[in-house]
Each structure stands twice: as C-alpha cells, then as structure tokens.
C-alpha cells in the first residue's frame, strides 16, 4: 500500500541556518570558502559540531559532483549524499529529501549548503543549465534566462491585462523590505517610475525587473524532531514539501501563464495539512518581477490572472496584508546564481522571530518557494513552529 507523505509531517526540523558573506566578496574568495563559512555559522546557530553531520546536500554551477566536492572541502564523509540538481529550487527540494532520509534512518543530521562567487568571478551569469545536446532555442538568440521570463510576461499581459506598473510594484515592494534588512545589497529608494525608466533588456522586462547578480552562500541544518528539541534554537518543523517540473525549456511549456508551482504548492499544502490562508509569511524565488505574480496565483493566494492587481498598493510590502519576500528577495537582497537556499533561511528566521526591523508579527507558518531553470522546476515548502504540530 502506498504510504502518505503526511506521515512525514513534522518528523524533521530545521535547527540551524546561516549566510556566508554576501554581496561582493572580492576576488580570490572561492565559492567553496563561502560554503565553509556558511557551514561553520549554521553549526554555531544550531549548537552542533561538524562531526554530527552525516547527510550532505549540495548543488552548484561552479563545480561538478557537488556533494563530493563540498564534502572534501568541509571534511565531511557523509553516509547519505544528495546532489539533486533542479536549479535554484534544489535547496528547497533538499528539505524534502532530507526529511525522508532522516525518517528512513539513512542519516540523522543533514547539511544543505550552497555558495557562489558569481559576481566577483565573472560579473555575469553562470548558469547550471549548460547542455551538450542540440538546442531548438539558442539559434534564435534569446538571452537566457531573461527572455524566457519576458515571453511569459508578454503572455500574462496579453491574457490578463497585467501591466508594467504592476510588475514594477513587485520590485518596489522588494526594495522596501530590503531597506529593513541590513544585509540586503540594494537599499536605496526605488519608485515604480524608476523601474519603468530603467534600461529595457528583453521587452517588457527592464534591468530593474531582474534579480541582482551577487556573491553569497547559505547553509541549512535539518535533523529529527526529537533531536531538534534538544538543541539551541526553537525547531522550525518541515510540515510538507512538494516538488514539480513539467518541462525544462520555455518553448515546451504548455501554458506560459501556469507554472508547475500549481502542483508543487498543492502537494506541499496536502502534505502539511495547511492552506494558503494558514500562511503568515511568504518567501518566493523572485528571479524576475513576474515570478511572485505567477507564484501567488499558482500557489493559491489569488486566482489565476489576478496576480497583477493583487500586488498593487503595497499589499506584499512592509505593512501590507500579505508579507512577501521579507528579506528583500532576489530583486534587492541578493541573488548569487541560485537563490533557493535563501528563501528557506528567511522563512526560518521569520518563524523564530529573529529578523529585527522586518519581523512580521505572530509568524507560525511560513511558505518558502524555489524556482529552477526558466520557470522549469518548482518546489514549495511549508514550515511551522511548535504550535503547528
């Protein structure tokens, strides 16, 4: 008989989170150095020793065999290893795999870790999507990933009347959150007019509709609920996670306005026994301003096509009815190649009440959503504090 994923609900918890240095780390600082730095900080946050880690999860665009390479640098010889590579969503997916592995006895303390020196080592985008097979897209010179998101945005505007002003509101809301986060990379004032007037890259998306290119790393430590209760910080329980991908290439999407977040969200809510109404704070992977609009629709926070009006008037900004991307997001906090681990870190800190000026009141349930590829892979995690068990 097929077991229900609901059996995993609350069996594992996040007990340590940390960022490495962020922003511009400078030449000579290596991606593995950031992985090491984030790991040491996350262990301190959890009150665990490196020798406690027996499960390792990693993905990287900088090196092959991610867990093997990171494991050597960190001096970790794990008994469970998982380099699941679904782009920026990988690290949210690792939560699900870690919870399952811990419940199955395959490991007890899992480290999920990421680092990237994308800004300092190149100034450009290093993508994990490189392929050695024939492409039916690249001969037409799309600029990826932005053109995939621009095509999607064009369709969303065509079908639902979504406007560039509404897209710009997403960037402005992110900036207002970033202004409350000392670690955010971009903290200057930003208006809708600024976004509309910035340089057009792939119509209708401008430079300010795009996420940042920064350096940075992060680490997340997961263990069993029983062990979590013996550690320093209040456990943040993994209530349910859903993975979904329908295609890799944007030209293969059946409906550009509908992402696999429809499935990942439904699976996460089913596994967690929660619904959108239960969620107190939302961390969405905002590679471009269209992302939060799509994901708020696909995850069920508003109806399909209503995402544009939904984000108007600062609804998702500080003081708004629905706090979204409270760290400033990939648009203003930072985006080191893959952003997925940072939605998890911020969701954990909001549940713990550790986020200072940007802290949302009475957070018991947080949703962290990762996106990978060009709206290709979607992973949704519902996390909660002790009261949600």
């Amino acid at each position: 008989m097929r077991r229900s994923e609901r059996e995993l609900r609350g069996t594992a918890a996040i007990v340590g989170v940390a960022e490495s240095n962020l922003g511009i780390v400078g030449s000579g600082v290596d991606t593995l150095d950031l992985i090491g730095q984030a790991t040491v900080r996350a262990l301190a946050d959890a009150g665990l020793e490196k020798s406690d880690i027996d499960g390792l999860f990693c993905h990287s665009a900088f090196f092959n065999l991610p867990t093997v390479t990171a494991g050597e640098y960190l001096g970790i010889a794990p008994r469970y290893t998982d380099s699941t590579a679904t782009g920026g969503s990988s690290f949210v997916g690792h939560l699900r795999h870690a919870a399952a592995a811990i419940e199955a006895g395959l490991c007890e303390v899992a480290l999920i870790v990421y680092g990237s020196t994308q800004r300092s080592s190149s100034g450009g985008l290093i993508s994990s999507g490189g392929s050695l097979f024939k492409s039916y897209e690249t001969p037409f010179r799309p600029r990826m990933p932005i053109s995939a998101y621009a095509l999607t945005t064009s369709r969303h505007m065509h079908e639902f009347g979504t406007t560039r002003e509404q897209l710009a509101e997403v960037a402005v809301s992110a900036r207002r959150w970033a202004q409350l986060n000392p670690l955010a990379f971009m903290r200057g004032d930003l208006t809708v007019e600024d976004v509309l007037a910035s340089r057009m890259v792939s119509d209708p998306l401008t430079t300010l509709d795009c996420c940042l290119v920064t350096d940075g790393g992060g680490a997340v430590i997961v263990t069993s609920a029983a062990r979590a209760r013996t550690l320093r910080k209040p456990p943040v329980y993994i209530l349910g996670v859903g993975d979904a991908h329908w295609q890799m290439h944007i030209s293969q999407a059946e409906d550009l306005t509908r992402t696999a977040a429809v499935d990942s969200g439904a699976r996460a809510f089913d596994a967690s026994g929660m619904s959108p109404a239960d969620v107190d704070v939302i961390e969405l992977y905002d590679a471009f301003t269209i992302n939060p609009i799509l994901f708020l629709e696909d995850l069920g926070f508003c109806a399909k096509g209503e995402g544009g009006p939904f984000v108007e008037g600062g609804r998702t900004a500080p003081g708004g009815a629905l706090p979204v991307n409270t760290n400033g997001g990939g648009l203003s906090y930072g985006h080191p190649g893959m952003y997925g681990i940072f939605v998890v870190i911020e969701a954990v800190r909001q549940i713990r009440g550790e986020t200072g000026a940007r802290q949302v009141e009475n957070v018991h349930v947080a949703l962290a959503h990762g996106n990978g590829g060009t709206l290709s892979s979607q992973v949704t995690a519902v996390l909660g504090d002790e009261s949600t068990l």
Partner: protein
Amino acid sequence: MTTTTVDDLSPETAPGVVYDRYLAEGVLAYQRCADFDHVVFPPRVLCPTCGCGALQWHASAGAGAVYAVTTLHPRGGGDYNVSLVDLDEGFRMMTNVIGIDPADVRIGMRVRATIDTTADEPLPLFVRDDVTGDDR
C-alpha cells in the same frame, strides 16, 4: 514521410540529424507518433505523450500564429524579435519573426516560415503572413 522506431537509431536517422536535413531542403519537419498520432516537437526517439517508440516525419505547412513575444535590446543596438510560434499542425517552437520592426510583432499575428537554405545553419525563421494577415 518515413517512420522510424527506436531500434533504427543511427547517425543517419538521429532525430536532430533528420530535422536538419529537412531544413537544408527548405522543409520545417515535425513528427507524429505511429500509435496515437500525437504531435511531437522538438524531434525525439519516443513520443513524450504516450511513450511509443515509432515516429513518422511530416512536413509542416509553416503557417502559424505568434503565442508569446519579446524584443531583445542589445547594448550596441540592433533590436531583434524572439517569439514562440504555434504552428497550425499543433506544435510550438521558438523562432525570430523577421522583416518587420520587432516592436510591431504582436501576439496572435499570423506568420509563416521562411528557411534560407543557403545559410551555413538553415533556420526556420518567420515572416508576417500578408496573404492571410488577419490577426486572430
């Protein structure tokens, strides 16, 4: 056109090779599966809908409509279009709509394929279809 099965796979029958060979002849080719007539694009050795391994090549009439659109604005100038076009046979592909100002390419615009067979890498580009040029 020919039908191939998975056991026919060779350097001569590989889906990408056959596709390029048709393009060099000025034909935009796509596949249909032998079992259910599912439309398959880009070319493969199996039908991604039903999983069967027998696929028949077909020539597209090259007529379709723009499904999604973007204009690229390189720093050095030279704006150009990238579109997703829905072919009337029921498949979608990325392409460039050429011959008009990129800013004038609209979702729903009828387009037809044009293939420069003298190019080093013949590509299926599209032009506005002035014969049936009604936007729909």
